[in-house]
């Protein structure tokens, strides 16, 4: 016959073991989450006083060379330039996350986005402000660290142009500059010397516009 005090001691110790195991498992989970957070180099987004809204991003995949559309809930400012910049920053920082299918360097990528009226275009019901040219000013640190290659550079441009086309219907052309200056290529391959037509890049390859703005 086991004495009562020994039974109490046994169950107390068994409970303590279970409690310790639970605490250990919880600690492991926290450590894992902390390590994942260290790998995520995404810049902390500036606080935006706006509700999250469904937004369409056109995302690239290096494995098959495809662009696919995905919906995300993103809080975006109302002012168009800031809205476009925040949208592209979100798009490009997603590519810096671990496990990305189109890996890009971490860090801020877009300095500014400007919208300019295209000469000779008229306002309409669909485009109340007239057709516009979006000038995307990329940061030199982003362009220099971008993976150098035809597929990778073309997919990045297609992803940016497609996302702008989907979210800013008045944009008809997109031009890229780096640190405010014209540049021949993104990082040795994709041509940045001429503007691109803003098209749905899910189905369309990219091609520069001629200097007179016509499709070559």
């Amino acid at each position: 016959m086991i004495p009562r005090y020994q039974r109490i001691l046994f169950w107390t110790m068994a409970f303590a073991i279970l409690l310790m195991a639970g605490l250990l498992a919880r600690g492991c989970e926290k450590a894992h989450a902390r390590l994942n957070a260290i790998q995520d180099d995404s810049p902390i987004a500036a606080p935006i006083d706006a509700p999250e809204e469904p937004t369409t991003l056109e995302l690239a995949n290096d494995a098959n060379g495809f662009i696919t559309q995905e919906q995300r809930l993103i809080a975006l400012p109302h002012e168009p330039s800031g809205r476009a910049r925040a949208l592209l920053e979100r798009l490009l920082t997603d590519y810096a996350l671990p496990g990305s299918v189109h890996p890009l360097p971490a860090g801020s990528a877009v300095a500014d986005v400007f919208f300019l009226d295209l000469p000779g275009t008229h306002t309409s019901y669909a485009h109340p402000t007239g057709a516009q040219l979006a000038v995307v000013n990329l940061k030199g640190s982003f362009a220099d660290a971008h993976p150098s290659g035809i597929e990778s550079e073309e997919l990045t441009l297609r992803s940016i142009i497609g996302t702008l086309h989907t979210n800013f219907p008045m944009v008809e052309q997109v031009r890229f500059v780096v640190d405010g200056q014209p540049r021949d290529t993104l990082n040795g391959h994709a041509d940045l010397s001429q503007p691109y037509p803003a098209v749905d890049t899910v189905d369309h390859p990219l091609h520069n516009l001629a200097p007179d703005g016509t499709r070559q």
Partner: protein
Amino acid sequence: MTRNPSRARLFQSALLLGLSCAALHAQAPNPPRSTILIDPAHGGPDNGARLAADLVEKDVNLALAQRLRSLLAERGFNVVFTREDDPPAQADGSRPPAVTTDQRAETANHAHPLACLLLHATNGGHGVHLFTSSLIPLTMIDEPKAVLNWETAQAGSIPQSLRLVNELSSSFNSARLPLVVGRASIRPIDSLTCPAILIEVAPLEGEGGAKTPVSDATYQQNVAEAIANGLISWRSHAAPAEAAEKTVTPEKPAKPASPKPAPAKPAAPAKQEDGDKP
């Protein structure tokens, strides 16, 4: 009246020389239709992508091009390179200027090749990437132009370029090399008048995530053999469609002088020709 014998001999010599030149000109062979142009991209001060700490893209492109040249020469192709080597840095550390993309296009257009292959290498993606120009192809209703625009000269060759991609795709599939096919206008492809494709070699991912780098000699040899086999198929299946000689040359905007139509016979100051003529 007496004739001057020395003047007569001079006249006879001049006549003979003229006839000889005419005969030589008439016997000059037509441009061989099995010429392949290879453009190892980048070079000189332009290193291209940095693939490893001590390896840059321009060197991998050149190594792959040289492997391909050997295989094509064995198969009876003439090979023309746009750049033969990478000139070393000078004593002051500067490098001689690279062959420009316009110069590469000029070499290609003068050679009238059966196919133009523009070789690149990258660390991004997986397998081999094939690209044709993203220009809008000329349609049957478009009037043929006497002079092509330098920036869009490839538009008339897009259908042939797409057929060439199909031939190479079959060859890569037979070699079990993963493939991504797309459209991209990377200079100088849009200025070429030959069927042209960009070939970008990326690392090969094996089972278990093991990566074979683009510098791997066996991988490069497999890629080169797949390209060579595809070109043999292209020569036998699609070359008849190419038989018509092109008598136009693209207009290069940098030259203000009025463009001249290309001569029917190539002047072709090619940088390198190799292999046996078929």
